[in-house]
């Protein structure tokens, strides 16, 4: 019954990367085009063993294409994809046994029960955890004998996770695991991912939720138009915005136009204000030392004869990183 230990021992013997030297996932110069759309345009990535790595970006950024090339479901036009020291051309069967996959929008047969579905997936793997253990991990004990058709969205997603886990994978791919879930179900799933991280599995996940990436990922690659436009820990990336906080405001006043003309140069000379941009009448400043900068911003705007119609601040997030890099909001699509 002690299969888990057996897998580990065997892998240490057969796989040179197991000592933790080589990256678990390695992409070099990967490109993929569909018809006339360049979905992935020259991607280089390395993911270390035990890392939780996030691919972040708007819909259509190439996240799913990237993860599907890693999963061996889509062949790249160019470049190399290596996982666990193996590649899909020569090591596909061995790789399939060692990775766990959760795809976007898989619908399991409605008329099978949770346990029957997992029993089927478990039978595909030579080694793995027991069906009972996967049910426990995904916290589906109460739903063990329920049909899949009667599960909630969050429970279905946890079943998909359990199916990805039955083979006791070293490397786990999660494609938009919380898309379409309500906030409570999302947090529930995050806890599950946390547990898997603590168990030492390498996890690659895609998401277009910035808070999710910030909460779960050790490192994040922000993608846009098939390219990585920023790479680092969430803290490093947020640091590139220039300030820890974001100030957003809108003004009224000025007789000639609906929106008053703001002298941006005057604002950016204020100590603590790092940058200014305007989007649909809403001005955004990245700011450090918020408590000192805000009174000065008020004073400067009053000095220009402008009245504030909106004013708010929030801590800088990965969303702001994306906005700063692309000039677009993540969900502008």
């Amino acid at each position, binding site marked *: *019954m002690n299969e888990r230990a057996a897998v580990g021992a065997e892998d240490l013997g057969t796989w040179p990367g197991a000592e933790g030297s080589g990256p678990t996932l390695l992409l070099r110069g990967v490109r993929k085009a569909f018809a006339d759309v360049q979905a992935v345009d020259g991607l280089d990535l390395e993911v270390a063993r035990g890392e939780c790595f996030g691919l972040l970006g708007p819909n259509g950024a190439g996240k799913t294409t990237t993860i599907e090339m890693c*999963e*061996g*479901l889509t062949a790249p036009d160019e470049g190399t994809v290596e996982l666990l020291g193996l590649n899909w051309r020569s090591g596909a*069967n061995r790789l*399939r*046994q060692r990775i766990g*996959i959760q*795809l*976007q*929008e*898989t*619908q*399991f*047969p409605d*008329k*099978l029960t949770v346990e*029957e579905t997992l*029993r*089927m*997936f*478990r*039978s*595909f*793997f*030579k080694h793995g955890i027991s069906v009972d253990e996967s049910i426990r991990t995904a916290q589906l004990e109460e739903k063990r004998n329920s049909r899949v058709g009667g599960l909630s969205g969050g429970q279905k997603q946890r079943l998909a996770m359990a*199916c990805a886990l039955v*083979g006791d994978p070293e490397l786990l791919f999660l494609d938009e695991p919380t898309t379409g879930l309500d906030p409570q179900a999302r947090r529930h799933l995050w806890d599950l991912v946390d547990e898997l991280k603590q168990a030492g599995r390498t996890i690659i996940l895609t998401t277009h939720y910035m808070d999710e990436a910030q909460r779960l990922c050790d490192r994040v690659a922000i993608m846009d138009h098939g390219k990585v436009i920023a790479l680092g820990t969430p803290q490093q990336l947020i640091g590139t915005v220039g300030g820890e906080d974001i100030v957003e405001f809108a003004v009224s006043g000025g007789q000639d136009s609906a929106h008053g003309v703001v002298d941006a140069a005057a604002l950016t000379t204020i100590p603590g204000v790092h940058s200014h941009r305007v989007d649909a009448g809403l001005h955004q400043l990245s700011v450090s030392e918020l408590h000192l900068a805000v009174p000065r911003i008020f004073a400067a705007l009053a000095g220009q004869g402008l009245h504030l119609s909106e004013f708010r601040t929030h801590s800088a997030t990965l969303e702001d990183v994306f906005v700063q890099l692309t000039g677009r909001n993540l969900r502008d699509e």
Partner: protein
Amino acid sequence: MNNLEYSSLCQLTIVRFRLFLREPEAIFWIFFFPILLAVGLGIAFRNRPADVLQVGATTTQLTQALSADKGLTADTVDEAEGTHELATGRILLLAIQTVTGVTYKYDDTNPDARTARLLADRAIQTAAGRHDAVAAGNELVHETGARYIDFVVPGLLGMNLMGSAMWGLGFAIVEARQKKLLKRLVASPMPKWQYLASFLLSRLAMLIIEVAFFLGFARVAFGVPFRGSLAELALLCLLTSLAFSALGLLVSSRAKTMEAASGLMNLVMLPMWILSGVFFSASRFPAVVQPFVRALPLTAAIEAMRANMLQGIGLSHLLLQVGILAAWFVVPFTVSLRIFRWR
């Protein structure tokens, strides 16, 4: 930890069974529909005692002569009234007394009217004093195996095997593709051939139940004969089911939506429902189209099953049909393995 639980082929086959058994509509169409159809047709086409035919005559003398025949009942009517009754179908024939003899007024495209013409003429000639030149007697047979129900049961069996194999495979595969389950399965270490094999295995197990149920009913309720070898009949059913499973696989190998699959299935099956001799002999179609009609898998299947059940012909005399079925298994199966789309 038993081996069955860890055999993926076994698990996949069990899953197919479970999914089938949890689909009540499928059970109706596969098990009960053919029986309802057989019962309906059995009632509609049961062999009735020979009908007594209604005729009319313009004189009482003729009426008496006609009534002497057990196959006829006759009324006396005048010519205008008789013509009207003829037109409305109340009588099949009107015998009109003329100066020189008798004229029969009837529709010669109606088989019953032609029979009435023969009987009426015999009755009138006999009454007038004609004697038979040759003494003739009758020996009546009402044999099983020559009734319509005997003819239609192998047809329904073939049609049912076609439907269950094609729908069973085609719909399940297209549904799994549409729901991205196929993609999830190929992303797992599942050997791809096992997925397709699980369909064939569950189909074969189902086939045993389905065929035994239907033929058992036909035997008990209608006394349909089984003159050929049962083992050979089983082999024919197996081959038929494999051929249609392969066709179902081919139809579903690329279709992305249920609607597309339904359309394709009907395109494949409809011509066979009409042309392959389920309800009437396929030989009724013109000679030009016969080679095409006979090359259809359902025609071959039904011809072979009828020959086995009704005439007791052995497989060695049905090699053409067996060859056609085998070709319809091998070619679509090979093609669909090549073009099958997993996502």
